[in-house]
């Protein structure tokens, strides 16, 4: 009885565009953010139904979790900037709108609608044309990948493509992420949250429980990436979630991490990736052509290092600036401890 699943798919397919439209059309930013989080969750389900568990994992971690937290924090800053315009409580807003005299209420403009309809139909026509022109089986990449799986060193096809067959692309992607973090760091310092705002006991306990669990799951995702869905990006995203949770809770330990260490953690993945790419050449292959027998180990090493760097990068992007140099004494006291944390996360 797969009918129920058919209805499930149709429902998902109908709700997703509607949700996307509501999210873009919403005049209220907060509502748009919540709709975005919901969209991420449903999108993840949709990826599952499309048999793309890797993407579903990434969407669950990044789309629903990290970006949601990022937007919710960004809203706060926006609100401070334009306090008069932005109201989170839209009950008030709605009330205001209803109190306005009728001639001041927002009027719908027919011209705008016609224009929007026209542009939409042009877009759909172009999209449909492009779809029709695309050959039904573009290049038959699937069987090609399946045929070469024996040489990749891993069992998961996605990982094989990402880190072996098209390792070059992934290398560049990791670099792009690194550049993004560099850009943010060169623009601004992280905003110092006041020291006295310690988290309440409930939040502190939640952090205490969740952060080690997140580290474990991140390690698991990196490991399982070689045989099933998972990998550096997914593991890194979960690691970043742990970082975001720590930043949200304003835990003192985070502030004491020396920035040199953060810099190294940020560089570790891209650097190791690049070095191993070059090392492959010196061994006697092309760029990123791992030796056949040990390809699995190379991939695992690169993935672990990149996972740490991606985690630190995403958390740094959330923090939104380069860290302050902590007082020299604190740094010395904590150096040994923090080095251990980061090295541990390294794997």
């Amino acid at each position, binding site marked *: 009885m797969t009918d129920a699943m058919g209805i499930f798919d149709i429902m998902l397919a109908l709700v997703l565009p509607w949700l996307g439209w509501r999210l873009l059309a919403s005049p209220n930013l907060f509502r748009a953010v919540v709709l975005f989080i919901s969209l991420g969750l449903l999108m993840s389900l949709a990826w599952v139904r499309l048999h793309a568990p890797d993407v579903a994992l990434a969407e669950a971690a990044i789309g629903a979790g990290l970006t949601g937290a990022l937007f919710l924090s960004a809203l706060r800053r926006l609100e401070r900037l334009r306090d008069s315009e932005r109201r989170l409580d839209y009950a008030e807003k709605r009330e205001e709108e209803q109190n306005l005299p009728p001639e001041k209420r927002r009027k719908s403009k027919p011209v705008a609608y016609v224009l929007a309809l026209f542009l939409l139909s042009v877009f759909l026509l172009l999209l449909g044309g492009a779809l029709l022109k695309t050959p039904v089986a573009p290049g038959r990449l699937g069987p090609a990948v399946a045929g070469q799986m024996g040489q990749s060193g891993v069992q998961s096809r996605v990982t094989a493509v990402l880190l072996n067959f098209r390792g070059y692309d992934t290398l560049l992607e990791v670099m792009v992420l690194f550049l993004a973090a560099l850009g943010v760091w060169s623009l601004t310092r992280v905003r110092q949250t006041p020291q006295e705002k310690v988290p*309440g006991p*409930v939040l502190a306990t939640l952090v205490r*429980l969740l952060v080690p669990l997140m580290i474990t799951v991140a390690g698991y995702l990196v490991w399982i990436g070689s045989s099933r869905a998972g990998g550096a990006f997914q593991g890194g995203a979960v690691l970043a979630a742990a970082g975001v949770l720590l930043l949200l809770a304003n835990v003192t330990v985070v502030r004491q991490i020396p920035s040199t260490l953060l810099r190294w953690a940020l560089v570790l993945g891209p650097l190791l990736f690049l070095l191993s790419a070059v090392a492959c050449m010196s061994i006697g292959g092309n760029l990123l052509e791992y030796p056949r027998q040990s390809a699995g180990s190379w991939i695992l090493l690169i993935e672990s290092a990149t996972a740490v760097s991606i985690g630190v990068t995403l958390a740094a992007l959330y923090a939104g600036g380069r860290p302050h140099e902590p007082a020299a004494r604190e740094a010395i006291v904590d150096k040994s401890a923090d080095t251990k944390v980061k090295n541990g996360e390294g794997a």
Partner: protein
Amino acid sequence: MAFLHNLGTICILIGIPFFVSGTIGLLRFPDIYTRLHALTKADNVGLGFVVLGLALQAEQWNTVARLLLIWLLVLVASSASCHLVARAALRKKIQPWSRS
């Protein structure tokens, strides 16, 4: 084995109404605090039954352990976030709805 399987089916079937009533509560209840009641309790019991049903039907030991882990995580996360949201609402001076 068949007995356990059927028991699991019954558990899953019991779990679904809890989810549904959680959503109905979310839609019908008058204010944020009462909606928190609906969400936190009904959904966790629903998920608990679904997890129990699936655990009864599971074939490997580590599937059972994982299901349990997931349920516990959701339990902790939802009760903690329930507290945090309720606290934020109280600090925002949102008055609880009362019948009068």
